């Protein structure tokens, strides 16, 4: 079973709640995905508004665990305060920690991320840090107390899949006891399956489902992709080889003659 800070989940897919064509499709897609964890954010409420209440009631109907994020935060101070607001608002010590360095790539600010993670963990938070695939950064996050590390596959919303496979594989090999989630850049169920085949514990995605022509069908496809990838990992994948190796027996091949 997938374990996040002592809570277990049967689905290895974490799903976002943004960008769907309608609230009803959001709910149907989340249900079809089988995900037990849904990411949400916090935003300013306009005077007179009750947008937050409407959205929150949709999420509560789903019987899922909520993972609030600090999306859009560009400094340690913003991220830490946003995390504390999330704890107050959602009544959870879980936080998907994002500190963003660059507008075009949404590249995590890994220096600020480690600092913010350490601050929040000292304050009792259970941190899900969104980071790059850099091993030294992941190790710093673990030293700070993170039991979960979430490297990107590719930039958020890019749908490019796993760009740096070897680095992600290295993270898995070097951090065998940490729950690893590929977060961001997944575009297709095959990308999700790839992450699970590498031994990643789960994937987190949003845009690839929400922006599909049929988000509910795509959510189901991702559910199957994640299940296929995990089952393949547990079954034990063969090693890649540089040369062909016939699968059909050679002995007894008709018309075969020894080369003279």
């Amino acid at each position, binding site marked *: 079973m997938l374990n996040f800070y002592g809570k277990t989940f049967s689905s290895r897919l974490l799903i976002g*709640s943004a960008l769907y064509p309608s609230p009803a499709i959001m709910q149907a897609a989340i249900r079809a995905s089988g995900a037990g964890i849904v990411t949400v954010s*916090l935003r300013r409420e306009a005077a007179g508004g009750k947008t937050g209440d409407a*959205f929150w009631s949709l999420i509560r109907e789903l019987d899922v665990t909520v993972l609030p994020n600090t999306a859009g935060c560009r400094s340690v101070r913003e991220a830490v305060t946003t995390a504390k607001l999330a704890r*107050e*608002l959602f009544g959870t010590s879980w936080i998907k920690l994002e500190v963003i360095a660059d507008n075009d790539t949404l590249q995590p600010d890994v220096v600020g991320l480690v600092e913010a993670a350490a601050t929040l963990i000292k304050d009792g938070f259970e941190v899900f840090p969104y980071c790059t695939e850099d091993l030294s950064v992941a190790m710093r996050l673990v030293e700070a107390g993170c039991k979960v590390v979430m490297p990107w596959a590719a930039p958020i919303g890019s749908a490019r899949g796993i760009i740096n496979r070897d680095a992600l594989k290295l993270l898995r090999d070097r951090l065998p006891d940490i729950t690893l989630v590929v977060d961001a850049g997944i575009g297709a169920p095959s990308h999700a399956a790839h992450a699970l085949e590498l031994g990643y514990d789960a994937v987190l995605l949003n845009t690839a489902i929400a922006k599909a022509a049929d988000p509910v069908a795509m959510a189901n496809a991702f559910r199957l992709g994640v299940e296929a990838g995990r089952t393949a990992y547990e079954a034990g994948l063969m090693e890649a080889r540089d040369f062909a190796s016939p699968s059909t027996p050679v002995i007894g091949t008709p018309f075969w003659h020894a080369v003279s």
Partner: protein
Amino acid sequence: MRVIVNGEPREISSASIDALLGELDYEGTHFAIALNFDVLPKARWAATALKSGDEIEIITPRQGG
């Protein structure tokens, strides 16, 4: 007095957060409040006095990835 609410300067007459939510016609129930970059727990909304120049963030749940 003049304060900043969600990044916008505003002239208000309320003396507390509770009163300010009423004055600005906030109708929802799920808010978190930050006062000058510190979270202000709901239990303290009524008792915390506002002063000129305060920065107030009024935050609600929203879609996220």
